[in-house]
């Protein structure tokens, strides 16, 4: 998340918002966001509604195999998915930012 915070302005420049969804409750999110000064929205999903929705409908990840990242383009289509074996297994921002450049070229 520190990695995303650091490059958040680049995501914004490329027309992307970052949304973080997790099973923790609202107070846990608030504490973590305050501690780490995170600029993007944090979405508590303690009922696992969205986590299940994505797990079931898109089969992006199997439960127990999170975290997962999904890039949704402006048209609402999924364009990228990655899931990791542990919390440190996350795609580098460079890869995501390059993909955003590709999406922006398509749209233009």
């Amino acid at each position: 998340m520190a990695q995303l915070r650091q490059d958040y302005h680049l995501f914004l420049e490329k027309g992307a918002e970052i949304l973080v969804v997790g099973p923790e409750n609202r107070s846990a999110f608030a504490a973590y966001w305050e501690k780490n000064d995170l600029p993007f929205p944090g979405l508590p999903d303690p009922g696992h509604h969205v986590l299940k929705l994505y797990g079931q409908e898109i089969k992006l990840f199997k439960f127990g195999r999170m975290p997962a990242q999904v890039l949704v383009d402006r048209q609402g289509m999924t364009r990228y998915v990655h899931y990791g074996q542990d919390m440190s297994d996350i795609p580098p921002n460079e890869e995501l930012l390059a993909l955003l450049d590709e999406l922006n070229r398509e749209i233009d």
Partner: protein
Amino acid sequence: MPKVAIQQPAPDFELQDFRGRTIRLSDYKGQKHVFLVFNRGFR
């Protein structure tokens, strides 16, 4: 670069962020790309 362009409509959802603001995925349609991060536990 490993890339999975799975090209499906992303399931819409609505959640409140921890500040109480309602966020709906479809509100970004036509406006912004959205990078969704599904987190498991804070470290």
